[in-house]
């Protein structure tokens, strides 16, 4: 039996035996005809869910997902504010079986609920530690139509200071980039000139090198010829027959010299 089957069976059994679920019955009976109480509990549960989501968004490191979660929280908050408006109206209605004190407390309960809803952090109040105007987009203040002018002006001034600082930094960086690019362009000009001159120099040397090539070829072949002839000559000179003849003649000459020496002494 697969998991899906088990789930279906469990659901069917639960539905069948719902009427025996004590807690559910108690809730339903408790709220019964009281629309206020029902709505109240619904809003409360939604509020808890939104709070949990906002907490998750706070610890989320991925900016995109945290932004998405914050957006969801904001939407939930808006919806809850609408429900709270409805709750207000319901709170005014008289419900049978409820004491006067209870009626009063209902108003307070709704107020408290509204405050809790607004207190849910939804990432609109970002810290101002970022430089420049990048935080301007995320730290947009809530647009209030009936707020006092002084409050608006203060907010305005802060924005333009950041924006002007950012603009100033942008101008400085652009100037530095321009300077760097100027230096690079000068270097490139020099390189281009050098390359052109090298080109012309090489063009000049091409016929010279060709001439050198020819002359060297000629010289090499001459040398080869000379070497071969030298080798032949040496062979002829060093042949053993010539050697013996040389030795004999040398001995003869020595003999003659010694005879003359003896004769003259």
């Amino acid at each position: 039996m697969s998991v899906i089957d088990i789930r279906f069976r469990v659901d069917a059994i639960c539905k069948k035996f719902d009427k025996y679920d004590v807690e559910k019955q108690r809730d339903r009976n408790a709220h019964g005809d009281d629309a206020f109480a029902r709505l109240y509990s619904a809003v409360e549960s939604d509020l808890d869910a939104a709070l949990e989501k906002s907490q998750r968004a706070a610890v989320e490191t991925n900016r995109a997902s945290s932004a998405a979660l914050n957006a969801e929280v904001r939407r939930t908050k808006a919806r809850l504010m609408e429900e709270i408006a409805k709750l207000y109206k319901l709170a005014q209605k008289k419900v049978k079986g409820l004491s006067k004190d209870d009626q009063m407390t209902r108003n307070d309960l709704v107020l408290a609920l509204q405050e809790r809803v607004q207190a849910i952090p939804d990432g609109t109040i970002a810290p101002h530690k970022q430089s420049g105007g990048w935080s301007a987009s995320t730290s947009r203040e809530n647009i209030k139509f009936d707020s006092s002018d002084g409050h608006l002006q203060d907010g305005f001034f802060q924005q333009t200071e950041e924006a002007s600082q950012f603009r100033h930094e942008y101008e400085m960086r652009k100037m530095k980039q321009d300077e760097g690019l100027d230096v690079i362009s000068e270097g490139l000009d020099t390189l281009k000139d050098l390359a052109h001159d090298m080109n012309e120099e090489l063009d000049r040397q091409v016929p010279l090198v060709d001439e050198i090539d020819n002359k060297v070829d000629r010289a090499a072949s001459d040398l080869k010829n000379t070497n071969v002839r030298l080798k032949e000559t040496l062979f002829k000179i060093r042949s053993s027959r010539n050697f013996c003849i040389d030795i004999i003649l040398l001995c003869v000459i020595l003999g003659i010299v010694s005879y003359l020496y003896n004769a003259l002494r």
Partner: protein
Amino acid sequence: MESAGSLAKELRNWSEVADFYRRASELYIECGRSQPASDALTKGARVLEEVVPEEAIKLYTDACAILEEDGKEQMAFDLYRAATSVYIKLEKFTDAAATLLRWGLAADKCNATNSQCKAYLSAIIVYLYLHDSTQAEKCYNDCSQIDAFLRSDQNRCATKLLSAYAEGDVEEIKHIAQSSTITHLDHVIIRLARKLPTGDVAALENNASKEQEEPLDENDLT
């Protein structure tokens, strides 16, 4: 013969130096060796540069002529450069400009476009140094006929320089003289360029505008 020439140099017998070197080069030409012939003349010219510059220039030009006859213009570049520097030292600027134009012609024959454009730009600068903007413009117009010059960096630089002169903008002229295109020219020319503008640029501008007014007057009369 060359050794005789160098000996004569030691003896400071200047006229004989020139004669010996010329004789040497003639002998080389008879053997049909043009390069050593021009080399001999160059050596003589280098020796005489300090002492008898006019003679040196004559030797340089003769050497260039020999090489050009033989079709070896590439070798002549150095000679032209030396001749130009001697002329500028002698402050004979028109002759210098003429030599530069001949250099440009030689460069054209061997398709050395970079040297050619540099030679033309140098000629324009020399004319401007003479404070002769009309000549400079004429020279510029002549050079613009040549395609390679028209398309080059040097042409742009020349246009800027001439327009700065026409407007009489001293700062602009100085700024252009510092630019890299001029820095790549021969250092003698760079020295001249740095000294630009000579004289009163505003006066030049007045002359130019006066010339423009005259045709209008003629129209009014007729």
